[in-house]
């Protein structure tokens, strides 16, 4: 019972925040509302005892991805007015596509209901059940090949990004850390022996 109430509260906040993401005028607010979305989604996962996924969602998406998003949004000077310029002109087309997608989704859900049985609510797991181990067991057996390939996709993204953006420009003033560290007092300070002078 309590779980149900919690579910509805967090689900409502999640939907509200998700609406806020697309309706907020300020892009920074959108990003922060998206963070709120992720937190609520993480709680929903906690409620069905998928604690590993909940923690990963917060750590990876909120901790890393959204911080990066914030950086990008703050660094790019996004002119919201210009983005909204074509809204009225494109709205009918967008509405048409939205309706088509909604019908398609509805149809697929309907087809599913016809043929395939939907799984009943998840049964409570026995105490001490390790979610992480379960995911690990699947990830390294059934999905070991796609998992490794996904890692390769990331590697390619890194190689491509560096190959396309790294430039060695001559004449750029850079620190040479090695030289800085290896410096000795004698290189920087010269002691000069001289007689003391009387003030005139």
């Amino acid at each position, binding site marked *: 019972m309590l779980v149900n109430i919690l579910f509805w509260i967090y689900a409502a906040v999640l939907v509200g925040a998700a609406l806020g993401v697309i309706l907020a005028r300020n892009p920074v607010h959108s990003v922060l509302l998206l963070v709120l979305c992720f937190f609520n989604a993480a709680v929903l996962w906690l409620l069905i005892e998928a604690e590993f996924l909940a923690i990963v969602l917060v750590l990876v998406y909120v901790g890393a991805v959204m911080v990066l998003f914030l950086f990008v949004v703050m660094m790019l000077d996004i002119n919201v007015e210009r983005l909204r310029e074509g809204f009225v002109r494109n709205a009918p087309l967008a509405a048409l596509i939205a309706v088509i997608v909604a019908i398609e989704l509805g149809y697929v859900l309907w087809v599913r209901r016809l043929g395939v049985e939907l799984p009943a609510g998840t049964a409570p797991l026995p105490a001490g059940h390790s979610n992480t181990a379960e995911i690990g067991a699947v990830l390294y057996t059934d999905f070991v090949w796609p998992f490794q390939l996904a890692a390769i*996709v990331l590697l390619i993204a890194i190689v491509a990004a560096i*190959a396309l953006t790294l430039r060695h420009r001559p004449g750029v003033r850079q620190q040479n850390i090695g030289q800085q560290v290896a410096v000795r007092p004698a290189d920087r300070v010269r002691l000069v022996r001289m007689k003391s002078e009387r003030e005139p």
Partner: protein
Amino acid sequence: MIEHAVPVLASSELVPAAAEIFIAAAACVVLLAEVFLPERRRGWTFVLAMLALAGATWVTSLVAMPERTVVLYGQFVADPLATVLKLFTYGIAAVSLLYSRDYLRRRGLLRGEYCVLTLFAVLGIQVIISAGSLLTLYLGIEILALSLYALVAFDRDNGVAAEAAMKYFVLGAIASGTLLYGISIVYGVTGSFDLGVLAVVVQGEAAGGIGLLLGLALIVVGVAFKFGAVPFHMWLPDVYHGSPTAVTLFIGSAPKIASFALAIRVLAEGLGGAVDAWQDMLVVLAVLSLAIGNVVAIAQTNLKRMLAYSTISHVGFILLGILAGNAAGYQAAMFYTLTYVILAVGAFGVILLLSRQGFESDELDDFRGLNQTSPWYAFVMLLLMFGMAGVPPIVGFWAKLQVIKAVIDIGLVWLAAFAVLMSVIGAFYYLRVVKNMYFEEPASREPLQAGGAFRLVLSLNGLAALALGLFPGLLLALCAQVLG
């Protein structure tokens, strides 16, 4: 604490995937070599990449499976088809690297990353060829596509190349999204990613369900984009034209093998039960590709752009073979793909042969009078152009014949007649290249700068087109054997 039985991945599961693992490891070695080798020894990364392809050939033939074997929990399929396609991929990739070497070096593009990205692209092709589930298939497509996006933009100070890469990237992302959407719907309807399971589930009544058809249509759109079939061809001319010729050569050759494998694995093997549904979709794609590709190619003055539209028309032919939906059709499509790849790699190779520092040699006018300056390579180009046009005795003729025969056998005579008509129209622009070479005065008499190995392999490439045309039986028998 409940004890978990620790799952163990048996090494016998990994053996069939040895070639993929080898290429991935080799790409990492090349990456490290690029980092640690001093500037003047960077040429070694190129040699290492060639060695990697040679090694992969060896490994693949070592672990070749005589029968269809599914390992890694249904994610990986090893069968004779995969072996043959992979061996072809290595060969084509090695030849295109060899052709590209001088061109890249003259333009300062011969960096280790180029070889690394090429090797990763080969890995993507391997993964697609051996995909046992829609998930693996999608990851293979992404590995291939990401490598190609980066390769197109590799000449980063070139505005045209950057524009081409941008278009390719955005349209490719949309296509991937469409494909994923289709895959998710198919998963929702059938409850499985596994192509083997799909082949069993999608039969009879289930194959006509509206949900499955929706997913199937979206998947066909994704496949058509990867092929470059009309109306999903928009990226192709710009990417072919904008990329450095060396990259065009690669994009125009080896990934076609991947597209063929993609179509066979998804449509023929996974969703074979829904053949009636996708046959009609492919008919539309094939007709449009044949028409638009051949007609628009006539209007091009740039050879790379012309070959791009010619690719679109050849894709139409490959689709004709696949839409036949039976073993003979798949064999014809495979024969067509392999021979087309050989012809395409040679044709772009000739462009690279004629290019010099600051001169791309990719306009049709640049080929004027080639017969007077270097008659042998004019003859090689003649063989390749006749091959693409489908003039006997070059191999392209047999390829077209097989495909058209397959289409007639399933009763689509009008489609066969249309294909013949379109290839007659297409012959015009191939013959125009030949006319430029043989009946015009040369534009310049600059000597060729290519090295000996390049010249030798290019000559062999041209002669292979002739030899396969004179003796097509061997390759035909091979296709029949692996797709029997």
